[in-house]
């Protein structure tokens, strides 16, 4: 191995690490606010990438009908609650979001001519897939929000399995790749960088900075942090945990779908690719103790680089290296931190 190969491998590792970092951030965010270990995070990556691919092929993606169906379920739940005597405050706006928005979007996708612009396609993909995040929270997690972590984990495994199954139904078994945003090559010394890799790095860095600003400066971001620290305290201060949950899932879905759109031109995505990407993000999130954003991001880069070097040295054992990383990390964490029993 010479310096050139090492540089290329590092560059490749950093690119995949950037995506793992985004997913790790989403996992840490979801866990700290809602205590859900969000296994389907990776599915949003696959849904985003494949929805984009289907739009590029001029087809109507199945995820659109998923959005409509989930909206109908949420609307039915809301109406049922009102019929049972709950207050009808906010019913109109809730119906508007759960029924009006998906139907409007469906009409838009079906009747407007398909656009060739990559930005329009990306925006449409985000508009279709991201809202399934909060709808998912409303349908699956809100009714059991106060349950122990284990119950929430089981629910999230169930969602993962159903989302993979639906993915096969929507997108078929074969993989897809989308057109690159930037079909250019940059020479940096002896290493050449593809335009898409630059995109991935820039977008990841931009998103991390945006999240940092959101949590540090904005009121909603601070409220989410408050909920993460103390749910009851935040509720007493007038910040609804239901709203916090939906906002968190919106952000998590957004991060997932955006990662999907970013990597779809670099690699082939299958309906079940998301799980493995999500798991690697999860390893990084564990390195950050499911609590620290910067450590998780650093861990993600470590996972990416480790993966790329082990694929060079011993490609048959690549995943073994990546997932074995979690054992020393757990040992180190259990030695250095005090374990606090969760009150269950």
């Amino acid at each position, binding site marked *: 191995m010479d310096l050139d190969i090492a540089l290329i491998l590092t560059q*490749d590792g950093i690119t*995949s690490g950037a995506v793992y970092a985004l997913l790790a951030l989403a996992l840490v965010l979801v866990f700290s606010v809602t205590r859900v270990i969000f296994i389907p995070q990776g599915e949003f990556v696959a849904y985003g990438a494949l929805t984009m691919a289907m739009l590029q092929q001029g087809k109507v993606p199945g995820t659109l009908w998923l959005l409509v169906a989930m909206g109908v379920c949420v609307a039915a739940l809301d109406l049922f609650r009102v019929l049972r005597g709950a207050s009808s405050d906010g019913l109109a706006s809730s119906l508007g979001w759960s029924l009006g928005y998906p139907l409007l979007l469906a009409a838009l996708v079906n009747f407007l001519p398909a656009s060739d612009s990559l930005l329009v396609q990306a925006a449409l993909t985000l508009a279709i897939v991201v809202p399934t995040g909060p709808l998912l929270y409303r349908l699956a997690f809100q009714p059991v929000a106060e349950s122990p972590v284990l119950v929430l984990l089981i629910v999230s495994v169930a969602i993962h399995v159903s989302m993979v199954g639906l993915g096969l139904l929507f997108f078929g078994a*074969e*993989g*897809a790749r989308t057109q690159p945003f930037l079909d250019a090559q940059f020479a940096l010394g002896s290493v050449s960088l593809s335009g898409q890799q630059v995109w991935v790095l820039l977008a990841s860095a931009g998103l991390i900075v945006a999240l940092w600003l959101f949590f540090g400066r904005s009121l909603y971001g601070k409220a989410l942090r408050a909920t993460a620290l103390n749910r009851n305290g935040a509720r007493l201060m007038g910040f609804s945990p239901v709203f916090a949950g939906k906002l968190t899932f919106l952000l998590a879905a957004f991060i997932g779908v955006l990662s999907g759109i970013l990597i779809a031109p670099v690699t*082939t995505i299958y309906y079940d690719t998301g799980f*493995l990407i999500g798991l690697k993000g999860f390893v990084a999130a564990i390195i950050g103790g499911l609590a620290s954003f910067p450590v998780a991001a650093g861990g993600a880069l470590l996972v990416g680089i480790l993966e*790329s*070097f082990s694929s060079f040295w011993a*490609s048959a054992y690549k995943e073994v290296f990546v997932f074995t990383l979690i054992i020393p990390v757990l040992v180190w964490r259990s030695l250095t931190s005090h374990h606090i029993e969760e009150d269950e």
Partner: protein
Amino acid sequence: MKMSKLAALLSTVALFSSQAVFADITVGVSLSSTGPGASLGIPQKNVFALLPNKIGGEAVKYVVLDDATDPSVATKNARKLVSEDKADVLVGSSTTPAAIALSEVAFESKTPQLALSPISIAADRSHWVFRTPQNNSLMAGAIVEHMKASGVKSVGFIGFSDAYGEDWLTAVTPMLAKAGIKLAAVERYARNDTSVSGQVLKLLSSRPDAVLIVGSGSPAALPQTTLFERGFKGQIYQTHAAVNQSFLSVAGKAAEGVIMPVGPVVVNAQIDDSFPSKKVGADLVARYEEKYGAGSFVPFVGHAYDAWRLIEAAVPLALKKAKPGTPEFRAALRDALESNKDVVASHGVYNMSATDHFGLDRRARVLVRVEGGQYKLLGK
């Protein structure tokens, strides 16, 4: 409540007894139509909707189950098919591990099996098992011959880290040694890997004249595109499992010039009329694409259809000896599958024998090259 349970029980009994009265031939099928093998299993499942429901004047029932590409589910399916549905013959599965799981049950229950994947198992276990796809060594032979003829001196290998990749490596290694071609590097990757840069760099650092990629369908495209991006100028070879439209659309311009060994049915319109399988193949492609859309035909469809051709040819012989649903019928069916000669199917002509349960010969392979986003027959 009790009454309804009783009724359910009675109707179940009635159902079973009715099966026993009308002794149809039962074809038990387990396919990987979900899970990682879905790209093989879904088209194969489609085939069973096209098949006639009579063989030799006897009614045929197809029980098609999904094994989710999971060997343990495949075993469960096989036991159900054998004990509950009284299957006379097992077909499946699409992927190697699941097909091996079925073969265990086929062996125990003495039921003939037509595997849709080129599995290698011990000779005594193989007694009841016949395979419809081409033997990997048959296909590897075509590639090695082409390498030798075009003066390739060293080859890099990158394959799936599963039974398919392993089987190809075992098949191709002695052939390369015999042809005096050096196997310069052996790398592995997984179906849903998002990057193979590391492996490709390792391959390129060994400076091979050619690279052999062993993968299936669209996952075979990732090493192809990565080699293209890294500026590899040598010849790239793929295997017959990679052949479908998704491979072409995902690999795009990186696929140009790649050479792959395939069953002649893939380029049916281009092959010579002297190919005995041409008519059967053309007929199958037309019927399949009529129902599932133009360009939907993949070679895996042919493997499932060929299993039916073999059964169709064997059933009349077995019917002379015993009634369907009996162990004697299953044994007679197995003997007929083994002794039948020159069964013309979509991929080629089958001549099974006691020592060869693959049955296909050189007439079941041609080399194609990808040109302008199409599979083109080589050497025409």
